């Protein structure tokens, strides 16, 4: 096995250098050939003064990064993945699109599951990363994490994905410990008319969507959409198909209105069904027999979100938001989950004198869970109601003629498990020059234990290394406390030239009271003594630290060539506190790649052809027997008519297959991600 890994690794090494050479060559040829054309073009054309005032006001001012400039002053490591970035990357899922952002670690586990994390704790349920879609939390308090296979939108409707690395407790509350992901869809005002997308390929067997947007009256616009896909499973390490399948259907609507000069509202909703299969080895009965099976997940979900904002006067506004979310999952034979969530939030922003901007507000969330314990996961009690209340206040003070912005505040949040939690933060931004910012911050964030950690139990794995099989079970602890983080961050963001944006951040995270799994006494589970149970009990006996650097360089070389390079480095150490003997959770420290590189080039070859290349390098995850890998995705699109586009996308082109992660939870198989190709037609009407 080790030899195999080494051999594959050396093949990859050879391929890696080949890619570098090809890439360098490609850039060299393309740049030099097209540079001449560019110089010619610069000679002619009209000026901005020829534009009407209306046109000027509708012009979005973007820096080299394509990042709306509001983020430029943000005293936090923020990355924005725009809808256009997603379109040109060829990504077909939200999880894959997140790999475009610096500092994100995205590993595909199998057909329908991903490990998505920021700054460590890189597991399928990355417990420290909060995810919101249009303000609706999709982080499940059942496991502390996000089930990525259920999170989907019409990718063409995504306005942007904001990735905020580091703690976001002040704004987003508990569980925004290592980062926050905000998926924000476009207003229906920006998606008027019709759109039909259809395509298919190897892994992306067949997919399609229809969307239509129109005006209800002078002040209200709408859109409706439907989408569906069928995806095919990957192969195991022997090259045999895992026989997995995943299909999903989704429909939704959005209404946006501006009834008066001061009011804006939106109402959107959606419904989905998703069926996926996971190949695994089921361990059944007290004898812990080993059988290969396909477990299935039948998922239904629906949600409605309402937003209203009102301008009270200059510098003062009121925002109201509410949503209802329903999820019904039957993960056979593991467990069943049904959850209803109702959430309401209010926020008031006003200016206090010329120097202070104050934001304050609060929110309430009610969650009702009806679960059914299954073969591998149990809950006691199975049903539960939970309440979450929060209040927050934040002041942003501008000093030295707005060259120094200091913002400080805190969130005060009450949950049913650990009571009141305080999450303060202090951040400052210094405007060292017109287009150069330095920032720093200190913040505290907490993670509330999940239902499973407090009131559940689950099978981790069946250890078959000894004479008799041993089932490793983790039992929740009703006294488990919240995990704590104090984070120190600093960074620089600047336009080195009008076309070159550099963003670098460094961080140090100090974790305490991390949930651990303390080994208990092993006991036989049958009278013959041929099968055993190894219990692990929940406690808060781990602490840890992590530090690292995240950087991105975005260069708009010309109006037809754009490049983005990203890099992240992470060191992550966990250790037992006095009395702790954990080794299960402790292993999380070795499940994140240390270095990651990404390089994207987007080229407009003439008016009608786009060529995009996206390469990624990821360090090995030795703990999971995952070798380092290079991947390359390529997209070629041809605009046949102004409203018709054909695109061909190749994914993971460098190898026939590679492993990105290994989720040994519940003994599932470990598929390898295959090379894939798909074609796509987009028709606008």
């Amino acid at each position, binding site marked *: 096995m080790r030899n195999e890994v080494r051999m594959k690794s*050396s093949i990859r090494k050879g391929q890696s250098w080949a890619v570098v050479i090809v890439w360098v060559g490609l850039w060299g040829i393309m740049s030099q050939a097209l540079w001449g054309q560019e110089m010619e073009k610069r000679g002619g054309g009209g000026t901005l003064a020829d534009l*009407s005032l209306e046109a000027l006001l509708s012009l979005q*001012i973007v820096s080299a990064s394509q990042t709306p*400039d509001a983020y430029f002053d943000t005293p936090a490591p923020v990355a924005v993945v725009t809808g256009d970035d997603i379109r040109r990357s060829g990504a077909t899922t939200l999880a894959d699109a997140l790999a475009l952002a610096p500092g994100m670690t995205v590993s595909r586990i199998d057909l329908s599951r991903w490990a998505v994390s920021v700054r460590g704790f890189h597991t399928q349920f990355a417990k420290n990363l909060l995810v919101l879609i249009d303000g609706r939390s999709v982080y499940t308090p059942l496991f502390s994490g996000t089930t990525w296979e259920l999170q989907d939108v019409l990718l063409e409707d995504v306005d942007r994905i904001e990735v905020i690395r580091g703690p976001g407790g002040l704004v987003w509350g508990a569980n925004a410990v290592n980062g926050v992901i905000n998926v924000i869809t476009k207003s229906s005002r920006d998606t008027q008319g019709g759109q039909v997308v259809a395509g298919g390929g190897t892994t992306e067997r067949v997919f399609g969507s229809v969307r239509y947007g129109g005006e209800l009256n002078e002040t209200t616009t709408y859109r409706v959409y439907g989408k569906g896909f069928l995806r095919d499973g990957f192969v195991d390490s022997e090259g045999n198909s895992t026989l997995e399948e995943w299909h999903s259907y989704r429909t939704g609507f959005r209404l946006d209105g501006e009834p008066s000069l001061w009011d804006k509202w939106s109402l959107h909703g959606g419904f989905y069904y998703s069926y996926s299969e996971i190949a695994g080895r089921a361990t059944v009965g007290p004898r812990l027999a080993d059988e290969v099976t396909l477990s299935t997940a039948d998922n239904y979900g629906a949600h409605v979100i309402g937003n209203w904002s009102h301008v009270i006067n200059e510098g003062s506004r009121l925002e109201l938001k509410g949503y209802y979310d329903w999820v019904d999952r039957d993960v056979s034979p593991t467990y069943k989950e049904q959850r209803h969530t109702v959430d309401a939030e209010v926020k008031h922003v006003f*200016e206090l004198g010329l120097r202070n901007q104050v934001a304050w507000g609060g929110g309430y969330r009610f969650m009702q869970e009806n679960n059914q314990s299954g073969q591998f996961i149990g809950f006691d009690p199975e049903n539960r109601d939970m309440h979450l209340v929060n209040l927050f206040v934040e002041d942003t003070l501008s000093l030295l003629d707005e060259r120094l912005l200091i913002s400080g505040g805190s969130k005060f949040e009450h949950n049913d498990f650990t009571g009141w939690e305080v999450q303060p933060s202090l951040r400052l931004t210094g405007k060292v020059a017109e287009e150069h910012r330095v920032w720093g911050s200190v913040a505290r964030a907490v993670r509330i234990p999940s239902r499973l950690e407090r009131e559940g139990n689950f099978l981790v794995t069946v250890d078959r290394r000894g004479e008799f099989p041993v089932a490793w079970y983790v039992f929740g602890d009703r006294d488990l406390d919240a995990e704590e983080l104090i984070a120190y961050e600093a960074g620089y963001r600047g336009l080195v030239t009008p076309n070159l944006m550099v963003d670098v951040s460094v961080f140090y995270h100090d974790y305490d009271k991390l949930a651990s799994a303390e080994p208990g006494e092993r006991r036989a589970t049958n009278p013959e003594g041929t099968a055993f149970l190894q219990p692990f009990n929940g406690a808060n006996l781990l602490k840890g630290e992590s530090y690292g650097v995240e950087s991105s360089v975005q260069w708009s070389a010309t*109006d037809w060539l754009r490049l983005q390079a990203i*890099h992240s480095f992470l060191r992550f150490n966990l250790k037992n506190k006095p009395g702790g003997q954990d080794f299960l959770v402790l292993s999380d420290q070795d499940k994140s790649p240390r270095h990651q*590189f990404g*390089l994207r080039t987007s080229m407009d070859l003439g008016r009608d052809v786009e060529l995009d290349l996206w390469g990624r390098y990821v360090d090995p995850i030795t703990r999971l027997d995952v070798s380092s890998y290079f991947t390359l995705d390529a997209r070629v699109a041809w605009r046949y008519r102004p409203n018709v586009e054909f695109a061909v996308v190749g994914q993971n082109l460098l190898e026939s297959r590679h492993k990105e992660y290994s989720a040994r939870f519940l003994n599932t198989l470990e598929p390898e991600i295959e090379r894939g190709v798909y074609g796509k037609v987009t028709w606008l009407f």
Partner: protein
Amino acid sequence: MLGHVKKVLAGIVLVGVGATHLALGWGGEVRPDEAEVRAALIYNVLRFADWPPEQLAEGDEIRVGFWGSSEVAADFVDLARQPLRGHAVRVVHVGEEADLQGLHAVYFHGGDRAEIQAFLNAVAGSPVLTLTEIRGGLRMGSMVNFFRVDGRYRIEISLSDVKASGLTLKSSLLRLARVYERGKLVREIE
């Protein structure tokens, strides 16, 4: 270990190639930058302004002052090569209060707030169109203030200050702006 180092180096090479090309194409900018857009906005707003005849007679040049932003001024010089409603345009760099003499419009951007306040006080009530891009600009006495929402420029206008100075702004400009009279919002952006 050596293999690992090589892979990291490979990544660095990929980034390095970007840097090399960057050096080759340092001046390859075509898309409008912020200064260009600001300059074009100022030019456009001036198209919609009318000065009293004794202030701007036929054949007079329109004198536009810039304080604090040489980049915008430089871009404005390029735009102002073409006459503005039949008047030649002259760009004046404003360094001290005396430079305000004889100006038809002046643009303040960045720099010291107190200093801008002093300049605004110096021209208050006279027929000089004051333009700013500063938070709370209208409350400081500016007539036209630019601000940004979601990366797009917006205009806010203090109509009472414009009227008090004897200037007029065409309704087609007011239609595109958030308009205040004596600090009260009277018209939102359409």
